[in-house]
């Protein structure tokens, strides 16, 4: 009897093609897209969700025996780290190269950006006018003393922002920027990006540094108080006259140990296609990788913007330096 069961299980698993994903993303948009992909291709998708860092550690631990085919993260820095750790492999795909702008994928094709988030300034409609705002650097000015809300520097989005500032201005200037921002904070950093918008709406701070994605969450929250917060604030894209607003990508790479490489590539190509890109924007308030092709109403309401074309691998390369500078600046 046991043998029959075993054979049955083996046959079943062999019959259905499948890919295994380690993902940091917990979003409904992904659930929808995974299902759509399975419906279209018959390829089953298995997922383990966890923090990217721990998933990377798990991949390293599993080595060549890892069942994972794809690592999916919410920032380029960790993809870069996975590449350096030697757990990803380069992919050749014309479709991916065509669909994804060069700055949003690895130069050696180890990983590919799939959605974009911009780190913007969110300001109080009551107390700030857009002409008072200009760049991230300007927030270090004394005039913003006690008026800025931003979360802890343990968060990857702040580390990536800092990494881009290091790339643009050098470590020394980046450190003094972080010191001044710390002095200008309305309160010691705490909470998520969302809580920074709350602080602005409550009058505690005038400007928050946060991701566009969280504004979408506030705007569509089931809680009326959240929607109230959204109404009191507005979005400003900084650094439009120089390098552009800092962006980061959610992206994926194929693991070195992948046993279903062909299907995994097919899946990434599917996610980079225009239909999937539309889903990311409308369900999850993320920009598509071709930002100008964005079709989400909410995102469009903030208008087009110029983004920093720094290759996002640099964010990963500068990440450790960024954390050290934060430590030195006393930005908790």
């Amino acid at each position, binding site marked *: 009897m046991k043998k029959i069961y075993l054979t049955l299980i083996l046959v079943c698993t062999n019959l259905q093609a499948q890919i*295994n994903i380690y993902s940091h993303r917990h979003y409904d948009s992904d659930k929808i897209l995974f299902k759509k992909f399975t419906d279209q291709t018959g390829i089953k998708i298995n997922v383990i969700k966890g923090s990217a860092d721990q998933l990377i550690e798990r991949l*390293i*631990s599993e080595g060549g*025996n890892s069942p994972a085919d794809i690592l999916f993260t919410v920032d380029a820095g960790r993809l870069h780290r996975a590449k350096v750790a030697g757990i990803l492999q380069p992919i050749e795909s014309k479709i991916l190269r065509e669909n994804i702008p060069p700055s949003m994928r690895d130069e050696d094709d180890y990983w590919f950006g799939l959605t974009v988030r911009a780190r913007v300034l969110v300001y109080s409609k009551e107390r700030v006018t857009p002409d008072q705002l200009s760049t991230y650097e300007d927030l270090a000015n004394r005039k913003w003393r006690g008026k800025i809300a931003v979360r802890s520097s*343990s968060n990857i989005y702040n580390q990536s922002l800092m990494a881009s500032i290091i790339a643009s201005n050098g470590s020394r200037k980046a450190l003094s920027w972080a010191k001044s921002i710390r002095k200008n904070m309305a309160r010691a950093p705490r909470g998520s990006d969302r809580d920074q918008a709350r602080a602005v709406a409550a009058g505690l701070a005038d400007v928050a540094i946060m991701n566009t994605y969280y504004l979408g969450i506030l705007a569509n*929250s089931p809680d009326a108080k959240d929607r109230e917060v959204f109404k009191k604030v507005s979005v400003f894209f900084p650094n439009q006259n120089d390098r552009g607003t800092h962006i980061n990508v959610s992206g994926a790479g194929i693991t070195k140990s992948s046993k279903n490489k062909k299907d995994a590539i097919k899946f990434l190509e599917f996610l980079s296609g225009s239909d999937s890109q539309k889903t990311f924007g409308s369900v999850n308030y993320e920009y598509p990788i071709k930002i100008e092709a964005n079709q989400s109403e909410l995102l469009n309401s903030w208008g087009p913007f110029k983004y920093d074309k720094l290759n996002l691998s640099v964010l990963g390369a500068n990440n450790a330096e960024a954390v050290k500078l934060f430590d030195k600046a006393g930005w908790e």
Partner: protein
Amino acid sequence: MDISALKSQKPLQILRQELLFKLNGWTILSLIVGLIIFFPIGEVLLSINSQSENWSHLKETVLLSYLLNTIILVVGTAFFSLIFGVLPAWIISNYQFKFRKILEWILVLPLAIPTYISAYAYFDVLELFNPLLIWVRNNINNDLMQFINNVLVYMVTILVMSSVLYPYIYLLARSAFVNQGAKLRDAASTLGYGEKSIFWKIALPMARPALIAGVSLVVMETLNDYGAVKHFGVPTFTSGIFRTWLGMGDLVGALQLSAVLIIFIFALLLIEKQIRSRSKYHDTLHSKPNSKKMVFGKKGSLAAIICCLIPLILGFVVPVIRLISWAWISRNKAGTIISMEMVSNSLLLSLISSVSIVSIAVLLAFTARYFKSSIINLSNRLATLGYSIPGAVIAIGILLIVAQINAWLNIALTGSLFLLIFAFIVRYLTVAWQPINAAIETNCDSLNHASKTLGSSAYTSLTSVNLPLIKSTLISAGLLVFIDVVKELPLTLILRPFNFETLSTATFDLSSQAQIIESSLPALCMIGIVLIPLGYLNYRLENIK
């Protein structure tokens, strides 16, 4: 007993004695099991030898503030947990008043709520103070406002943590007070002691071992917390470990920080043991548990009820009402968010873990006590360290060990339920081992001696003497482990198999994508599940006394 034996003999002699007379199937098996459980922790400790490139950076910049924040948080949480736990325990075990019976029961309810969920439920409580802060900034100055803000952050974090952790102290203090007995009280009052002095000079000092045990549980839970401190922005040692590991990509540095933390905890435990071993706490009067209770008047009753209600409201009523109101808003999503599979995964995982952990705890405790083996006693101490180490650090240790096995056997052991359950054993063994070890010590030690003289085998002693005598402890220990595993997050998150969701991972998923309101649905389910064994456990405890 083993420690004093160690002191009086030369190590070599002990070793010879151990090898000659105590080497048998039981001790060998226990030693192997104990060491395997200790491996992941040992791996973390080993890292203290290697030098992280960032260590001097950490020392120069953040180490001191991690240490200070951690100490403030630990001391504050221990202090408020003591107040929240001891006062109701004292009132309930000595006085009669309205609603006493029900209060006695429901005071343990906050145990059902993990600290990270309570922190979510209170996520915006600090916003209530915004008007005050803004007023201070506009009318006095920014520095004072920053100061007030910082004080508020610590106060709220400490109150949120202690209001869910106090039941550890409450439970132990209650049984200590009850067992102190009526005769002692009578003697004290004849000697002219008032109520106050009986409490401060007799009852409290006598309950010290129980209180210290409770406080050390609270301290470990506080050190293990990552969610609440992250949310309220208090950079503690635990958050520093993650920052160094994830932010700087420096695993060695993170492991070194963890090793410092482990040594810190080890020192605390040792000090506690030293303090305790110097004094003896026997009730030589052999008096019966205190069943006669003084009756409170109306005013007294009211004060007593308020005393008991404050921690309960903070730790249970407010968070649960908050969660229920959120669940109500998002009720139409319940079908898509919660699945039967999630619930059964949580239940099954906790059930299997409880049974395996209790079985291993029995094996280890019995072998050490029955054969009076100091080697097994030592390996047991090492194997039960896991509870004091943050779950995510244990996960690193396990991944490091498993990496070697994976490469060696050419498999991927991660992602198997087996490994996940092993991880729980590493983390929660002590939860079952402590009470089982104590139960064998008090109930079975002398009987084991007798049965040995009568020539029974160890197996017969275990099955026909020990197990029947400690049956109720086994059940309580199993329930305690069950409650812990249902609430567990970091280990499940990183070591789980594909497509495997439990109620706690679902709660985390939703809240980490900023859907705190929706996350109330699995959170409430989890609390509901924990309430069942918790209620039963409490019922048992009351019947025992």
